[in-house]
């Protein structure tokens, strides 16, 4: 843990989700890097990662200062001793962070903070408004069950699912509503039976899915060129497609949604600690929180960013992105074998290989 800031090292290397760190290249208005670089002379170098597993792997490998880890990665990073505790005293804006997030269990272990909250949001159901017409979907069943969509054609081959093992949780959450007899209490804590039911649902989904998505941009391509009309997605894709005039919209269906709450965490061997701290402060204090929440369709971890006009976000926007849904969202977290709710659960490594099997048609 760093005691005091030094002189900026001139660079900071960050592993981030796509769309998380924008410098005006995709769209001119969305830039929260250039000013930081000018002010601190810390050059921001970004490596994007598409899955939590990839992030963990990159951090295990080293060479990075920071990572925007989701809940299903953060605790693994802590357990693997890849990230260091942070000194909140060195981050003046720490107290502006949403209180619900300040001590969130996915970055706070035994009272020690391993990062600054970055942003959170739901995994929404994106759908094509032309295909659904005036009957927008209200349930995840459009991606799990074979059915005829409002445009009269089957959903077979026209829906997608996320190409990451964490998608098992989406299935489990769907089962919480539709098969209450399984007794699932958390989609991340599944007994063998519950897990098996989730996999069966996913196998059923495999029949509907032509190709899984693992990359935000490829998903957008697939909506445009492959006739995909519904899929779990991120607000990011929804916003971008909308901005291009493509007929999509999104919804948090009745079953609720999984979601992510991301934390900027610092590598144990960070080579540029001062720049890293300066960046963490920047994420909380600048226009970043506000603009990013517009850009990505997410909720800032600094509530004030919704309304204080530091960026483009407005209170209505924050509400639309789910500010009030905090309790309905089940945030990504890593499944472990010793789980709180029911003692013995199926651990994550099995999710990994079994999901590969499901996609492979087994």
């Amino acid at each position, binding site marked *: 843990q760093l005691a005091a800031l030094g002189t900026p090292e001139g660079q900071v*290397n960050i592993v981030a989700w*796509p769309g998380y760190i924008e410098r005006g*290249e*995709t769209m001119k208005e969305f830039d929260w890097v250039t000013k930081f670089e000018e002010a601190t002379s810390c050059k921001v*170098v970004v*490596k*994007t990662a598409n899955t939590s597993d990839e992030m963990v792997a990159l951090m295990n*490998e080293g*060479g990075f200062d920071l990572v925007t880890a989701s809940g299903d990665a953060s605790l693994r990073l802590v357990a693997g001793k890849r990230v260091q505790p942070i000194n909140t005293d060195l981050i003046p804006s720490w107290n502006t962070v949403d209180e619900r997030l300040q001590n969130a269990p996915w970055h706070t272990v035994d009272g020690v903070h391993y990062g600054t909250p970055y942003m959170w949001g739901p995994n929404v159901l994106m759908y094509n408004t032309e295909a659904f017409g005036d009957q927008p979907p209200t349930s995840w069943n459009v991606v799990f069950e074979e059915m005829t969509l409002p445009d009269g054609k089957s959903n077979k081959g026209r829906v997608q699912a996320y190409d990451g093992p964490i998608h098992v949780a989406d299935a489990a959450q769907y089962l919480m509503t539709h098969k209450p007899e399984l007794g699932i209490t958390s989609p991340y804590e599944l007994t063998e039976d519950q897990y098996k039911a989730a996999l069966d649902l996913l196998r059923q989904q495999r029949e509907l899915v032509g190709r899984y998505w693992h*990359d935000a*941009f*490829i998903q957008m*391509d697939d909506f*445009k*060129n492959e006739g995909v009309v519904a899929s779990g997605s991120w607000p990011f894709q929804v916003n971008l497609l909308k901005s*291009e005039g493509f007929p999509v919209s999104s919804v948090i269906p009745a079953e609720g949604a999984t979601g992510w709450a991301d934390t900027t965490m610092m590598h144990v061997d960070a080579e540029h600690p001062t720049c890293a701290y300066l960046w963490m402060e920047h994420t909380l204090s600048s226009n970043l929180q506000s603009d990013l929440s517009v850009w990505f369709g997410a909720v800032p971890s600094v509530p004030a960013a919704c309304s204080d006009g530091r960026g483009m976000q407005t209170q209505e926007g924050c509400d639309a992105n789910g500010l009030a849904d905090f309790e309905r969202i089940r945030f990504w977290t890593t499944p472990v074998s010793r789980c709180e709710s029911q003692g013995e659960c199926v651990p994550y490594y099995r999710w990994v290989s079994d999901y590969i099997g499901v996609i492979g048609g087994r």
Partner: protein
Amino acid sequence: MHSEARASTGLKIGAVAGLLFLHLPILLIFLYAFTTEERTYQFPPPGLTTEWFAVAWHREDIWPPLYLSLKVAAVSTALAMILGTLIAAAMARSRFFGREQIALLIILPIALPGVITGMSLRSAFAVMDIPFSTFTIVLGHATFCIVIVYNNAVARFRRLSGAVFEASADLGANGFQTLRYVLLPNLGSALLAGGMLAFALSFDEVIVTTFTAGQQSTLPIWMLNELVRPRQRPVTNVVAIVVFATTFVPILLAYYLTRGGSETAGGGK
């Protein structure tokens, strides 16, 4: 020759259809360098423009990967040429114990999938605590370029009768003079051809590079990023065209240099 003077129609159709299959997609790459639609590959293109060439020229993020790719390809090629020639000389000169195994070892890096070469190098770097750098990329590329140079050199050695080296010694030349006046001039064009092919191979390699590059981007890695996360898709095509056009010349040159030889220029890329 009478019975074989003309190809049968079936063969002609097969050959032409095969070549079309190879080239039509490439025409598409050309077409999309001129489309007015910048984010998606919409077909047919809504309009045509040449602006992307100027845009590409001014895109600063192209130049460092380009420079790195050139550097990596140049260094890898140089290393491969030295090592490939040495081993070709040794293999052509004599039969010795383990020769067969060495022949296998040489082609292994090209016969095993790149993902394996890449991964094993990566885990070796990890084991030995070697940080990723231009050097690690070169290490990977040179390894699979050796065989290209080797193949070309060894074919030329085979064609060159051993007697010319003896003739040189017979006329009073020492080993170094023979190297300078007989071996190199005769091997030269084969080496050049092998070198150019190795260069092109390194320049286009994605998979091995992905594993050995760490933070740096070579041109193909840059392309991969551009393709997956498009900003100005036509710019990628412009770059592809420019690379295509610049490889055209060395390939043609390699052809004329090795013409009539038994070298299959580019065989075993």
